[in-house]
């Protein structure tokens, strides 16, 4: 058995005073210690298996504790089943809760009829999925809340993906091929609050406009915005086709919209990517199986879910400041953008 070392033992081997050891290990910089001495003390401490005395804060060694968390979804269960993006986040949450030994005590859903009332007495923490502002009249204002796919406030942890960066990657990719006109198909974005729905301009749409404006190529009539489902993608592309004079390429804000759009193009016998190129964002599983396989920016949604859980555990273990996390995105180049037939300019 390796005994737990004391400051005295460390001091002896490192050949310094106990007070020096104490200062080094508590990072006291008002007292100047040479670099070499500091390193020596730390290494001796480590090799002697020095452990801080357990403080009031919980630490990882405190194993017996099992936590209950609640998960609040922005949408109904039926809606979630139609949206692989949110389903994947949920899977990430469930898997990681399993890994970490957390129990998902309750699943709440935000519905339009009544604002969610959350019984916070039965949960240790709340994970919110989707763009929901929640101001809780909670008896426990310091109950940790982690937001996934949204950043609610500075004080609560958040996990998101950078939609503006994802949009830039998609647009840059399409612009590489020299497509002179790029259209946009997207949805209206909003945040659900206790007072109602707040619409805001989606970051993908903003980036699309900005990048074309920079080149003096932006045209309002090439933008088609509606809601976010497959059906909407189909309808919006149908409108674009009917208008005639289709852009050479489309940046579609999500895979579901893109899949609907592909269908509309097929029905009108317009060849993708030979006549119209498509690129989108999400990277849901089915995107590689549609015809043609969709070029898209993959969002690591399962990772977003599991990171949300990890942040929650970290909070429950005592972290008292907020962290904001962005999960990377990755451009998956497939056929719908024209990569097999065109070379980038």
């Amino acid at each position, binding site marked *: 058995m390796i005994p737990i070392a004391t400051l005295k033992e460390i001091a002896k*081997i*490192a050949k310094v005073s106990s007070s020096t050891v104490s200062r080094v*290990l508590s*990072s006291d*910089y*008002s007292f100047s210690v040479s*670099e070499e001495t500091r*390193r*020596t003390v*730390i*290494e*001796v*401490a*480590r*090799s*002697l*298996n*020095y452990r*801080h005395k357990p403080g009031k804060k919980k630490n*990882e060694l405190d194993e017996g504790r099992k936590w209950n968390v609640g998960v609040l979804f922005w949408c109904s269960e039926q809606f979630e089943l139609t949206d692989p993006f949110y389903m994947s986040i949920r899977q990430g949450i469930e898997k990681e809760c399993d890994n970490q030994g957390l129990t998902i005590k309750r699943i709440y859903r935000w519905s339009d009829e009544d604002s969610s009332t959350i019984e916070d007495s039965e949960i240790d923490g709340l994970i919110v999925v989707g763009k929901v502002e929640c101001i809780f009249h909670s008896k426990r204002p310091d109950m940790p809340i982690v937001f996934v796919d949204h950043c609610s406030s*500075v004080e609560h942890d958040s996990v998101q993906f950078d939609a503006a960066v994802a949009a830039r990657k998609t647009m840059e990719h399409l612009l590489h091929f020299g497509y002179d006109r790029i259209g946009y198909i997207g949805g209206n974005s909003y945040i659900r609050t206790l007072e109602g729905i707040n619409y805001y301009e989606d970051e993908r749409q903003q980036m699309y406009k900005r990048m074309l404006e920079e080149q003096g190529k932006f045209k309002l009539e090439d933008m088609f915005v509606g809601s976010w489902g497959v059906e909407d993608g189909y309808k919006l592309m149908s409108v674009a086709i009917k208008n005639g004079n289709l852009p050479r390429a489309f940046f579609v804000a999500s895979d579901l919209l893109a899949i609907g759009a592909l269908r509309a193009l097929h029905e009108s016998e317009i060849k993708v990517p030979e006549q119209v190129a498509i690129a989108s964002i999400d990277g849901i599983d089915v995107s590689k199986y549609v015809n043609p396989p969709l070029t898209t920016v993959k969002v*690591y949604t399962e*990772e977003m879910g599991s*990171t949300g859980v*990890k942040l929650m555990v*970290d909070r429950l273990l005592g972290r008292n*400041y*907020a*962290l*904001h*996390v*962005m*999960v*990377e*995105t990755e451009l998956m180049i497939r056929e719908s953008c024209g990569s097999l037939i065109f070379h980038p300019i």
Partner: protein
Amino acid sequence: MVEIATIKDIAELAEVSSATVSRVLNNDLSFNVPEETKNKVIEVAKRLNYKKKAERKRKTDEATEYKLGLLIWCSEQLEYSDPYYLSIRVGVERECLRRGIDIHRVFRWVEGTSQDMNLSDLHGLISIGKVNPSFILNSKDTNLQVVTVDCISSERCDAVVFDLEKAATQALDYLFELGHQRIGYIGGTTYVFSKDTKEQYVDERQRAFCRLMAEKGLLRERDLHIGGWGTESGYRLMKRAIEQGDIPSAFLIACDPMAIGALRAIDESGLQVPEEISIVSIDDIELSQYVNPPLTTVRVFSEEMGKTAVKLMLDRLKSGREASLQVTIPTELVVRKSCRGVKKDEQA
């Protein structure tokens, strides 16, 4: 430096052969070792904290099996003059100590020479400061996990940053609240180091300052003073600002060390802080509360940045996570005594 002793080390000190050491420590009675020799070997082994290989291996079945390297982008002297980086490193070391993880190697970036770092036996590398790790990620050590602190580079590795623009905005908003309109900026030039090159870019604090001032129509090029980082530079730049005349009523200074230099320059000129010039800066190093007057500054939780880097690294190594994460650490305005409010008619 203290290392885990090997049989060879013990043999050397005890002045016996390695075979003898091995036999003694394994309690091999088939070989006759004089009592005195045996005691000597055991004593030396204890002193050097020798652990049997099996014991060592058992201990390393946990997180302690990971070998981490630390890359720091500046020299030791610079680290001491800018406690921000020192504090990040402390955060890393303390978290490693807490978890019993070995920092196997420390590298310092030396500008102008191509660093040939031996990374082959490391599981992970934590890089502190503005070094673009692409050349590491693109090299043959493809299993090496990298976490950068205080540098946004490629996305393919985890990164811990604080929102510099936000910090500058917090500081500047405070000055606006106090009624200041003539505001100057003192800051440094930022570079990101690559394998053989360095790239200059406009620091986010400077960018935020220019943007916010321009939005209000208050930006004056003459009130921007950019030089090197560090106390000496802060001193020189403020001296220059004072000599220029028509001095702003407030300054946003990019970091505490520069602000401390600036305070000295103001003091030498006979002007007073905050009565005649208000100063706000960014960092909240320990010294900032002890200078005269105590500095109003934006606290950056730098030690927590180091700590978070270790947590990210462990998460990568343990869970085999594939997607990279970028974590932003909060900042908060700490109001002390170096600023005061001004009324409209006081502005020149």
